[in-house]
């Protein structure tokens, strides 16, 4: 079983209008190499589902997005993403704003092939008002409680980034938090996982305990080797959030010219090797410390 492929081959499988879930959390362990490949493509009209960070902001800035489904969009070390803010404030995108747990539940329902899962989050708030399609449901038991019926959020595609994969699609996460990557993969028809390094299956144990093997082969259709593929987000323990880069990136939302300059310097480059050079090279990125929260 060999699921290795290139980022370009991943993007060739994507279509306009698709719903794409992106793993990671804020500015942590985002499949940015795959996102950059989308930025370089002709794709448009995408619905992006994420615990959002610069993945969401970049896709918005590049005009790839029709709708964002999110609990938040934040750069972690910088509270707000300038490009996402601009897209919302100019009405350039549709939005489905959810409680973080509702987002998890929607993906989890999709992964279990359930139409919905009951939840309390969202009730007694405006989350109901801004999501008029989300229904409530009465408990069929004597408690008769009124609950929110979080609808399944099925994805056409999930994109994630992990530390190691084997060629067959087992994924190893060495960082402290798996976030919801397995749930994103569970909710999607096609799942593409980039990794710092493709390793032989028998070497997983040298890097971490069984508990680090978060994704199994049923979760993954394609494996893409992408060293530093999460930059400018973190891939702990390897490298931290590139706060300096994110500052430049987010500030580029202010003027169209600034975005074009950012795009020219960091997006429209000749592949990921050129990108790595543009952001200071492997040595610099490897030395970025983990953020302190």
């Amino acid at each position: 079983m060999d699921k290795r492929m290139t980022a370009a081959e991943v993007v060739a499988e994507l279509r306009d209008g698709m719903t794409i879930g992106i793993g990671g959390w804020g500015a942590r362990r985002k499949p940015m190499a795959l996102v950059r490949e989308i930025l370089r493509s002709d794709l448009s009209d995408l619905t992006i589902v994420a615990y959002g960070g610069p993945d969401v902001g970049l896709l918005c800035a590049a005009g790839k997005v029709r709708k964002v489904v999110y609990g938040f969009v934040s750069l972690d070390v910088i509270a707000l993403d300038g490009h996402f803010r601009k897209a919302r404030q100019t009405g350039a995108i549709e939005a489905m704003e959810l409680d973080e747990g509702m987002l998890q539940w929607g993906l989890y329902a999709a992964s279990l092939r359930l139409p919905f899962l009951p939840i309390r989050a969202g009730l007694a708030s405006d989350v109901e008002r801004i999501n008029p399609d989300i229904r409530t449901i009465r408990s069929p038991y004597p408690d008769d409680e009124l609950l929110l019926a979080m609808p399944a959020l099925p994805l056409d595609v999930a994109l994630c980034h992990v530390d190691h994969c084997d060629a067959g699609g087992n994924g190893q996460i060495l960082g402290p938090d798996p976030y919801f990557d397995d749930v994103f993969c569970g909710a999607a028809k096609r799942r593409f996982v980039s990794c710092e390094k493709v390793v032989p299956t028998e070497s997983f144990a040298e890097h971490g305990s069984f508990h680090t093997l978060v994704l199994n082969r049923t979760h993954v259709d394609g494996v893409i080797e992408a060293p530093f593929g999460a930059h400018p987000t973190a891939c702990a323990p390897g490298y931290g959030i590139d706060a300096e880069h994110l500052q430049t990136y987010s500030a580029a939302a202010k003027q169209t010219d600034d975005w074009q300059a950012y795009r020219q310097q960091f997006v429209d480059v000749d592949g990921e090797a050129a990108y790595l050079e543009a952001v200071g090279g492997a040595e610099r990125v490897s030395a970025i410390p983990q953020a302190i929260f």
Partner: protein
Amino acid sequence: MSADFELVDLCIAACADDFADKGEVLASGTGVVPRLAAGVAKLGSNPALLMTDGECTFVAEPVPIGPRGDYRVKPENWIPFRKIFDLVWGGRRHFMTTPTQLDRHGTPNISCIGDWAQPKAQLLGVRGVPGNTINHSTAYFVAAHSKRTFVEKVDMASGAGNDPQRWAPGVRRDFHRLTRCVTNLCVMDFGGSGGTLRIVSLHPGASVEQVRENTGFELEVADDLAETRAPTGQELDLIHRLDPHGQRAGVIRG
């Protein structure tokens, strides 16, 4: 303030009091003051509290804020985001945060300013606030008591407050509890009519008139209105230990 402490220290102590009676729960404070308050409570009034390193490690002692130098966190357990959600939904948490807007019923907004459909200012989004506020106790800290924060109507209800209009019949309400709101002028609880904000103590030098002038709705006053207590020497020691770089100095301006 006396020479011994600053207004922000008094606010931290007032916030710490809110963690004292919460038992063995995750003490979450977002922002410098709530986080220091949780740490002060854990090392003082309520050692049973659980705290994290701000990411996904439960720590045996609160981590000082800012650059850590030689300090090593003392891990006690593992708490990735999904397990935080489980704790939240199970009610094993007390949360203190700073809303962008708050109405008299304690309805918070952290999402956006203006009409949600196309906001004047997009902020964070609702994050976990809907789930937090409906599942466990919640408190607020506001560094600048003003009509910009305390508004008649929030632009977006990012979570549950005490407004009965927002609670449909059949929604379970007994897990929801708003405890207090500490500002740079006073401490309020939700003992006003219908669970609305009410001044329970004024910080030294603040007046009821001043608080009311800076609040965008009518504010009740407790019969036994008091002066907010000063932080104790032990609390001040803990505050210094947990904030070695003095980040709290920038919280309250003017």
